[in-house]
């Protein structure tokens, strides 16, 4: 149980917490923080596994990879926060709507079509349908690869499904 292994396990723990967080939490700011937690976890694993090189000098390649990863993560986070700010300004909400529900479609770029509530309901059922089907398919072969895949997809649906029903105008302001 060297130092590297301990920190690698801690990195995996962060990966799990972040993954659970991004699926379960509905507020977008939580999701963005969860993304950062996942990336910190992965970077910790990357450097921790490299800590066990022969001789005292640590292996510089994973450090360079993590440096690049941190800069990529900060740019993705900054873009996501910009998107969130803009989304809040346009809709007054900070939660993603049901994937199928919000499909008024844009006629031409720049036409900021108002997101009319009555359109939201009729598109909602399509997505619910595949959520159940997705979970139904319990592939077994590859170490539960399918479950992980379906679960991730199934609960992303649930995650959004749940809040959409509760999301009637709760926006960011009420608590």
């Amino acid at each position, binding site marked *: 149980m060297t130092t590297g292994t301990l920190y690698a396990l801690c990195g995996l*723990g962060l990966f799990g917490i972040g993954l659970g967080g991004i699926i*379960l939490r*509905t507020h977008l*700011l939580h999701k963005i923080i969860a993304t950062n937690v996942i990336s910190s976890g992965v970077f910790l694993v990357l450097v921790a596994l490299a800590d066990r090189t022969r001789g005292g000098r640590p292996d510089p390649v994973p450090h360079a990879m993590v440096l690049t990863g941190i800069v990529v993560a900060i740019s993705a986070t900054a873009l996501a926060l910009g998107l969130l700010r803009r989304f809040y*300004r346009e809709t*007054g909400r900070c939660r993603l709507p049901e994937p199928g529900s919000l499909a008024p479609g844009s006629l031409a770029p720049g036409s900021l079509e108002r997101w009319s509530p009555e359109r939201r309901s009729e598109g909602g059922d399509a997505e619910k349908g595949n959520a159940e089907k997705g979970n139904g398919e319990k592939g077994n072969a590859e170490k539960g690869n399918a479950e992980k895949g379906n679960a991730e997809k199934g*609960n992303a649906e649930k995650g959004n499904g749940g809040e959409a029903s509760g999301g009637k105008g709760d926006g960011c302001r009420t608590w």
Partner: protein
Amino acid sequence: MRGGRKTADRTENTDEGIRSKAYSHREVSTMSPVLWILDALFCASLLGLAWQTLRTRDLFKAIVLYIVFGLMMAMAWARLDAPDVALVEAAIGAGVTGVLLLSTLGTLSAARGEGSQRGGAFASAVPVAGLVTGLVGCLVGVLAVAVWQLPVESPGLSAAVEARQEESGTSNPVTAVLLNFRAYDTLLELTVLLLAVLGAEVLAGSEAAGSEAAEGGVAAQETAPRQETGPRQETGPRQETGPRQETGTRQGPDAQQERPPAADRDPVLRGFVRLVAPAMIVVAGYVLWIGGEAPGGAFPSGAVLAAMSFLLMLARAEEGPRLSRRGGRWILVAGLIVFWGVGIAMLAAERRFLEYPVPAAKGLVLLIEAVAAVSIAATLVALYRGGRLVRRPRRTVDSEFRS
């Protein structure tokens, strides 16, 4: 100045091979209990902070916890012999991420002064949460077993890097990997930053003024009046930027007299910024220069410069960065242009793409790092501002962005 200060308590037999100061062998044997306790504390605090950050419903608390999480990560990097990563984590975590998150929170919770924002309940019914935690748990469990089975000694590339270190033009192995051996990765990474700015600019397209509001403290006042006009959907599309121009009407200036002046006219803040901003430029230059032989380089230096610009914008000091529209774009891509220029010059000189001639390697690496640092800083500022560096000068702003 101090004789053999290390007393006999060091159990580790330090073989005094030639080793640059930055990477002296660990003095304390890895088996001594104190290091175990330190590692245990770091790992426990990291996991605890991450859990709390995502569990709490108050968003401001989540952000503060995340800022402290960045601090603990920097200490974990320090403990894992990764000073370069610790430096970047410190510069970006403390300087950039915190301000970005807080500015977004400021926009989101403009209605309530306290800024405490509820994250809303967990997704939905308990069975789904149970299912997700179960599956994520089993995924992490399987991966933990895999990590546990990893051979103790991993065949890293440190020997290969050490062998070619002299030809790389820098004595810091991480900078050598970043800017010489795998320079192509860093080139693509600067393109990632450019794409992020483009994406932010596209989204801020019709909201240019809006993004400006998010810049200073006026965000709270400006968006405040909109809240009272009732729920969002009914008031029609937001894309015109008219109301953004005039400053929010405060609830009668006199109502404020007994309270201290608002922050932006606060002498302490302005004095502090005038004092710290030059120090930041000096430190950024120092970090950039030392990148050659010790941890440092373009990324931390760029992040420190960006943090300085945030301070200037936050304090709305007179010397806010003022860039013409054209100038802003050139600074954003300066790093890329120099990198591509060097790469193509090597091609023209019948060498491979980005294959630096050994004598010129040090100079080229430093040149690329310097310009990349400026570009990274400009990019982070543009991302904070919603894709644009241009700042419609409200007041005449004189001094240039950077000396």
